[in-house]
Each structure stands twice: as C-alpha cells, then as structure tokens.
C-alpha cells in the first residue's frame, strides 16, 4: 500500500511538469497548427539559461526562473518572426521541414556552446525530503509542482479570460474575420508562439535542476509533449493538463507493477489505444473540426 501511495505522489510531481510541457505545445501545435519541432530545444534552452544565470552569473535561483522564461519568450518570438512569418500560408509540410531544420541547428548549437557533458544546477532546497508517513518527496519537486500548477492556471486564464486570449482564439479560428474586427493578426501569431515557447523554457528551467542538463534532454521531452497533446485533444488546455497526469500515471504504474523496461512504452501504448478508439483525443470538444 505504501508503495502504491509513493507511486501516486511520484505521479503527481511528474504529471505537473508533463502538463506544463503539454500546454505550451498545445498552444502552438493545437491552436496555431504549427508542428513545432523546436519545443524540445526550447525546453533544453530554458534549462541551460538556468545553468548560466545561476552558475556563471551567480544570480539567485528564484530570480533565475523568470529570466529563463523571458529568454524562452524572446527566442520563441525570434523563431516566429524569422522563420514562421515568411512561411505563413505555405503548406504544413514546408513549415514542418523548416522546424525540423531549426531543431537540428539549435540542438547542434547547444552542443557546440556547452559541449555534450551533462551539467547540473544547485538549488537552495534542502537535500532531506519531506516525509509524510510511508511516503516521501523532495522539496525541490514540490516547488516544481507548485510552480507548474501556477503557470498552468495563469495560461488557462490568459487564453480563456483575457482580451488577448480571446483575440488568439479568434485569429486561429478565422484569421480574416478576426482581422476585420481589428485584431492585429501578426502580433497574435508572434505572441502565441512566444507564450508557447516560454512555457517550454519554463518546464526546462524547472526540470533542469531536478535532473541533469545536456543538449539532447529535449528530445524525449518533446516526444512526450506531442503524446500529451494528442492524448488531450489538440488545442485543449484542460485536456493537455489531464493528458500530462495520465501519461505520468501510466508510466509510474507501468514501471512499478508491469515492467520498468517498458516504462516509456506505456504512455505510447495508451496513445495508440486513444488514436484507435477516439482519434480526436480524449477531451476534444465535439464542435472542433479541422
């Protein structure tokens, strides 16, 4: 029983970060319809910014986090302005190929600058875990969960309760009509991509210190983010959050009770099942078509 409780706690902590990865991508892949292969690199980028700011500039850990998010926002805006804007209106394959190119170029860039050897970031949290009866959890991970939860709520409110969010949704539903209503479509494209990117960087900045930081760390994260987005239904923020926790649950229980060798396969087995039985994702709204 205590093992099961420990798995549940692990699931909560892991799920929060998966959800954060998922909502960033669902904005870009689900709402903007850009197959964003740079999501994983932005995750890596966020983690390296943490490393630079904390270890090379000597800035406080908590101050470094918003800086990493801001850096992700800027890089995202740059990618949109330089790569995606000239390609707007071209078909999805062209954009996809350009994004694959950007992914490879940026990953090689991180390798070139920082080398292949993993780096780690020290945190101000105590090493001794929080022990609650039979289960325990590290303070750092609790902080990550709380920060992820906060970012998820902020993003949800931004998309659903603000004028900017309303303009975003309008733009990607019908660009021409939105434009006629006075929405600055160019600005919306840039800010949506930048927000999605900053969420990826935030996930990297939060998880980098939990694990280790290396140039390819974003690859597995990106694959999982795509899985979560497909699981939750494209463009659905609530779906991405639930998808994140479901994937974490499948991995934890799969590794704990089936076989640890198939841990990463568990999530993908669920996705295959979802795609067969409910191809629009578990939580896609019925009115969403195309």
């Amino acid at each position, binding site marked *: 029983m205590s093992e099961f409780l420990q798995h549940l706690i692990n699931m909560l902590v892991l799920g929060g970060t998966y959800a954060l990865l998922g909502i960033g991508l669902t904005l870009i892949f689900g709402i903007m319809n850009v197959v964003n292969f740079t999501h994983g690199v932005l995750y890596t980028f966020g983690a390296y910014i943490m490393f630079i700011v904390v270890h090379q500039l000597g800035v406080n850990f908590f101050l470094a986090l918003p800086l990493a998010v801001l850096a992700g926002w800027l890089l995202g805006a740059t990618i949109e302005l330089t790569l995606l804007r000239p390609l707007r209106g071209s078909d999805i394959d062209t954009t996809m190929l350009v994004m694959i190119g950007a992914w490879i170029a940026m990953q090689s860039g991180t390798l070139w600058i920082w080398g292949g050897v993993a780096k780690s970031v020290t945190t101000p949290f105590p090493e001794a875990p929080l022990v609650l009866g039979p289960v325990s959890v590290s303070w750092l991970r609790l902080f990550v969960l709380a920060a992820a939860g906060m970012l998820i709520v902020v993003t949800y409110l931004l998309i659903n309760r603000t004028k900017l969010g309303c303009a975003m949704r309008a733009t990607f539903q019908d660009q021409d009509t939105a434009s006629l209503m006075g929405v600055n479509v160019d600005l919306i494209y840039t800010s949506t991509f930048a927000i999605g990117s900053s969420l990826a960087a935030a996930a990297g900045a939060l998880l980098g210190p939990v694990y280790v930081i290396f140039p390819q760390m974003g690859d597995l994260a990106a694959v999982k983010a795509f899985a979560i987005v497909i699981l939750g239904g494209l463009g659905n923020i609530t779906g991405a959050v639930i998808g994140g926790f479901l994937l974490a649950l499948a991995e934890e229980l799969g590794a704990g009770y089936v076989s640890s060798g198939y841990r*990463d396969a568990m999530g993908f087995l669920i996705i295959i099942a979802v795609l067969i039985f409910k191809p629009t994702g578990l939580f896609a709204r019925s009115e969403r078509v195309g």
Partner: protein
Amino acid sequence: MTLTFRSVSAIALAIAFLGGAAEAQTIKIGVNEPLTGAFAASGTYVVNGAKIAADEINAKGGILGKKIELVIEDNKSNPTEAAAVAEKLITSDKVPVLMGAWGSSLTLAVMPKLMEYETPMVVETSSSGKITTTGNPYIFRISPPSAIEAAAFKGIVDKLELKKVDFLVINNDWGRGTAEDFSKMMKEKGIAVGAVETMDQGAQDMSAQLSKLKGTDSETIIVTTAVDQLTLIFKQAAALGLKKRIITTGGSQNPDQIIAQAGAAANGTMHLTTFLPWFPDKTPNPEATNYFIAEWKKRGFDFAGCTESFRGYDGIRTVAAAIEKAGKAEPAAIKAALWDIKIKGLNGDIVFRKSGPVGKESGQSQPNVYLIEITDGKIGMKTL
C-alpha cells in the same frame, strides 16, 4: 566573387595536399567514443586520457620514428553510429587499429565491422561477457568483464553480510549482463536475488523503479550504469527516503562526481571500481599513476574523471606498444603483436589471454577490481 571562390578552393586544395603529405608522417589510431548522448561525460574523459598517452608518446619521439595521431570520432552513445564511425575510421581515415567504443552495446555493434575489415580494436571500458566469448579474434579487452567483477566481489559478500539483493541496471548489454553474472555468483553464495529492475540509457526519472525497490524485503541494491544516471539515482533515492545499501558496479561511477552532485545522498554507498586515483601508492604502478594524475590536473580536467580517463591512457599505450612490437602500422601485424605485448598499465599488467571459442579467440587482460566506500563525503578503500 568568382575570384574569391577560386582562391578559396585553391587554398582548400593546397591544404588538402599539405594534409596528405603530413599524413604519411604519422601513425593513425582510430578512437571511437561517445562524446554526446547518454555517455558523453564518460566518453569525453576516456578521450582526454587517450590524448595524454598520445602526447607522452610523441614527446618521447613517437613510435617507429613517427608521431602518433589520434583520429577521434563521436559515436553519439548510439550503437548504429558506433558501427558507422568504425567503418569511417577504417575505410576513410585508413586507421590500422581502433580503440573503443566505451559501452558494451556500442562495442558489440562495432565488432562485425572489425571482422569485415580485419582490423583489431582495443576495448577499454565495456564489460559485457559477450564481447570476448562470441569468437571475434579482433577484440583485445583491457577492462574487466562483469564475470571478473562478480568473482572479485565474491570474496567480500560474507563480510558485508548480504542476504538478499535487488538489481537496478541500465537496459542494455552492459546492465543485463551484469545482473546475470552477479545473480549467478550471489546464488552460489546462497544469497537470494529479488527484483531485477531496468532503466533506459537516456531515462532521467527512476523514481518509479526506486519506489518499487523501496518496498521489497532486500537490504542491498546492486546498481549498474554510468555516472550521470548514478547521480540522479542517488538524489532520487534520497528523495524517496530509500535507506538500503547501494553498491554500484562497472567502474564508470566517478565517485568524486557522485559526492559533488549527490551530496549526503552518496554517503554509505559502495562502488566496484578499476582504478584508485585517490591512493596512488596502492595501485600496481604508482609511478605511472602519479605521472598520469599530475598530467590530468595540469590540463585542468576534473579529478573525478580519473577513474574513467585512465582507460583511454592505458588503451592508447597498449595500442602503441603493439604497433612498436609489430614494426609496422598494419592491421594484421598489430593484431599478431597484441598477443605478445606486456605493459605496465595503471591497473595492473596488460597481457592478453585467450578467451572464447577455439581458433577465433579474443584477447582478455585481467585487471584488478577494487571496492571503495563513501563515508562523510570521503572515499575509503575496502579490502576485497
């Protein structure tokens, strides 16, 4: 513009010719190591150790009157890449001998290429038994296979009062091979073997496996993987309140890095290692060990890397000794000469004995294995 392009290509051609001319003056040794991916830290250490050996040999005038030149390629911690890199080194760079490829799965992927091109390789790190037992006569291994590690460990299990052990191993030839060889030895000693958990080489979160191991009735966990994953395991085990004794195998632990990155979580852990940079006087070749460590520090490398980099140093010295003995830098002659060399390695004499099916034996040297324990952030030696 056209002019610029022309002059650029002319320069490029000139450089190529010069390079070609310089080539004949050196003896090339192919180095096939993981410099990116899951084993980047370890592979980089090995390459840096190899460079120290090459510089030392060249400073003394090289071999056969020529300087040696390391042709270093990154196998990206990926078996497919490791095979491709071996092919490139042999066919395009024309190296007569290789050193590599760090991981067991990487080395196993390279082995068919060695047969195809009849080129020998000195294996410096890999520990899967399969490497020297499948009948590949081009393999000469200086690292201990996991069965030798298990045999060395056998002597101390009574003192450690092991009753039941679980395994957490990397899910590849190295990890699974270690679990097999150690389980066999444990069972012979009457020690029960519980759960055998695995993790992917790129996995960063082992909490699920560790939560499961926390709940079993074993008192010890044998862990096999490289340093990056090990530090994560120690941190995550501490976060889960897992208080069992952890013993690691494979010699790729870099204990100082574990202490630095995992802090208090490293205390009480034990590690089977193949080099003792902390106690140069207790190594089989103190003079060479002191030289190597001094050179390593002089180059500004992290001391933690010594336990890994010495393999690159010994590997290149082994290759160089064989080329010298062969009298020419040709694959068949080097292969024959590898059987006849005897050099003083940092971890004991390097002498190859026959291993594997008759007629196509691989070479296996018998290095020493040590057990160390981390107490209060300090490394102490245990007698095996």
